[in-house]
């Protein structure tokens, strides 16, 4: 039996368990449902969860454990010479055996050892699967009966079910912690290796970024310089420009849609704006580089400013357009959720709509608006393609938006996908940049959290 069919069977069993539990509670109630502690559905859920959850957990163990079990057995029949040839050969041998066993690849005439291994794989896999399926089904049935037996009229099934639900909620919310841990780990070790090569202070406070390092051993290396300040300055500049576009436009659009526009206009405009968030960034990149950048260059020249054809301004402006919906749609929802009584209270005192918005609605909706802006900020920090295409890759330390700059994210991406070398500082730098960016945004978020807390006005 495969895992998926097992899971399917367990699901069906749980559905049955639900109806059994429900029916039992109803029959216990003798037609007076109010004599039950909880609604019949909760009894059903209770039995279903006890039937399904352990079995599903087992399925995870199954998935994780079966390959090692089978591989362990196969290991015993691997011929000496293959063993001697190293891990790669073993791996290939295994691959051959698996291919033969599953019959998916027509391999060139397999050796007897491979044949034997394949037959072990076939046999053992079947055994392991049967064993797990057997245990799993037994578990499911045991859970079902145990839970079913516990049902009495005053059994607190709702509390039980809700407790399980809460545990599931807690588990879901720890996922973000695991993701963070995963991210930190996936950048930490490489960063440490980077800092062994490049002094951390040079990295943190260096004013020059030019990761040119010899890529061929026979090349004479030109030492790259790894000062991240220009990158962070560039990131800030572009993010600032993007937010300077997105937040006012997004917020004003949100206000207009929720407070001024008619229902129909809003129903049309909001989804339209949301399309902006879904246009692939390559498209924005082309737009920024080929339409906006020349305009800005022309504009700069007409002002007598020496504008580069690749400029922070072009990238920032277009990025701003891209993140408008992050602000407009989310803010529109929270503004819309402010109770009407507050609007009435203000309007009744003779405030204009705009005064009402500025003085009453926006403060009340502040946490949501702040969340929207933070999200927009985050998105701006993380954007790559537009910057690569429109602002270039040159790490200039400048505050002049008409000049080319680059961002941390862009450098991370180009370092990771560009030509790389094992262990070269150039490749490792990407991880160090990732780590520092992570820490910096964390600090910013902490500050933001406190500010929002401070100014939050809880209505009602």
């Amino acid at each position, binding site marked *: 039996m495969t895992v998926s069919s097992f899971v399917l069977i367990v699901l069906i069993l749980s559905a049955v368990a639900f109806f059994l539990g429900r029916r039992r509670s109803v029959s216990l109630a003798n037609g007076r449902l109010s004599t039950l502690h909880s609604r019949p559905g909760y009894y059903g859920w209770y039995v279903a969860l006890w039937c399904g959850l352990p079995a599903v957990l087992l399925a995870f163990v199954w998935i994780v454990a079966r390959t090692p079990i089978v591989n362990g057995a196969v290991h015993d029949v691997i011929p000496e010479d293959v063993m001697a040839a190293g891990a790669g050969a073993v791996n290939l041998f295994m691959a051959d055996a698996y291919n033969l066993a599953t019959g998916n690849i027509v391999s060139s005439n397999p050796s007897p050892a491979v044949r034997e291994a394949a037959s072990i794989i076939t046999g053992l896999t079947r055994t392991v699967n049967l064993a797990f399926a057997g245990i799993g089904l037994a578990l499911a049935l045991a859970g079902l009966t145990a839970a079913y037996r516990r049902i009495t009229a005053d059994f607190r099934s709702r509390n039980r079910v809700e407790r399980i639900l809460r545990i599931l909620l807690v588990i879901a919310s720890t996922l973000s912690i695991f993701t963070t841990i995963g991210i930190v780990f996936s950048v930490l070790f490489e960063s440490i290796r980077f800092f062994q090569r490049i002094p951390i202070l040079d990295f943190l406070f260096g004013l020059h970024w030019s990761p040119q390092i010899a890529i061929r051993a026979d090349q004479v290396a030109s030492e790259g310089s790894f000062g991240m300040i220009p990158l962070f300055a560039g990131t800030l500049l572009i993010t600032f420009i993007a937010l300077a576009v997105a937040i006012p436009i997004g917020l004003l659009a949100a206000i207009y849609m929720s407070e001024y526009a008619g229902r129909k206009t809003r129903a049309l405009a909001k989804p339209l704006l949301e399309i902006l968030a879904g246009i692939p960034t390559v498209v924005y990149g082309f737009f920024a580089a080929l339409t906006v950048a020349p305009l800005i260059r022309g504009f700069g020249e007409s002002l007598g400013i020496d504008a580069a054809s690749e400029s922070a301004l072009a990238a920032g402006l277009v990025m701003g357009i891209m993140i408008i919906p992050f602000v407009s749609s989310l803010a529109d929802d929270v503004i819309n959720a402010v109770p009407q009584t507050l609007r009435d209270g203000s309007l009744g*005192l003779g405030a204009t709509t705009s005064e009402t918005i500025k003085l009453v609605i926006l403060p009340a909706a502040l946490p949501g608006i702040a969340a929207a802006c933070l999200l927009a900020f985050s998105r701006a920090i993380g954007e790559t393609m537009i910057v690569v295409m429109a602002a270039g890759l040159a790490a200039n330390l400048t505050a002049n938006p008409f000049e080319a700059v680059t961002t941390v994210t862009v450098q991370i991406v180009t370092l990771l996908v560009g030509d790389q070398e094992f262990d070269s500082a150039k490749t490792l730098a990407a991880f160090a940049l990732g780590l520092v960016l992570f820490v910096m945004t964390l600090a910013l978020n902490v500050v933001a959290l406190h500010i929002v807390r401070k100014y939050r006005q809880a209505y009602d």
Partner: protein
Amino acid sequence: MTSGLVPKMTARKLNLFYGEKQALFDVDLDIHANSVTALIGPSGCGKSTFLRCLNRMNDTIPNVRIQGEVKLETADIYDRSVDVVQLRARVGMVFQKPNPFPKTIYDNVAYGPRIHGLADSREELDQIVERSLKRAGLYEEVKSRLQESGTGLSGGQQQRLCIARAIAVDPEVILMDEPCSALDPIATARIEELIDELRENYTIAIVTHSMQQAARVSQRTAFFHLGQLVEFGDTEQVFTNPREVRTQDYITGRFG
């Protein structure tokens, strides 16, 4: 009889619909200057609806349709040229459900004067806030916590806060929708005193469920029933010698 009085606001053939449902039927009513007009009637008869028509607060409810005419002095307030903001500044309102802003008590009261530019200095604003809270009989209770949130007040305190907030704007007409519903007798007495005091300079319309209160504070009383204005006249006359049977029944509590 108070026929010597000037009508400050007049409603003529006022019909109001919530979507399909008609809530007011051909209401003709004058609200006289420098007097208190009480609106009474069973729950759901349209008192609040009528009151909200007088400063166009019904504009904020979707699907409301209004026919007829409402005048403030000589101007039709539903005329396109009318500035709703000015109208609402001149015709203030205390809502039936207290709805303080999620701001400090001080800011709640200062809100109106600020937007209308009624205070030229911080001190003046402080004075307005203090005076308004005092007139609403709330000052003593909250003077030490003016910087705490208005939503953390008790029900009756919130109601008085909303009254203070409304009178701080210094409107010409004050519409009060059951301003004492959450108040104890003493606070009620304070508000009634306030109403009496305000009457000298202002025009007041008040919705109340208490016949005693209507009799105590108002000069004229309008009795609504099922969206219709059944009877309207001098308070004394309405309470002692009602012309309509329905009024009689309602006042004596025989209705239902």
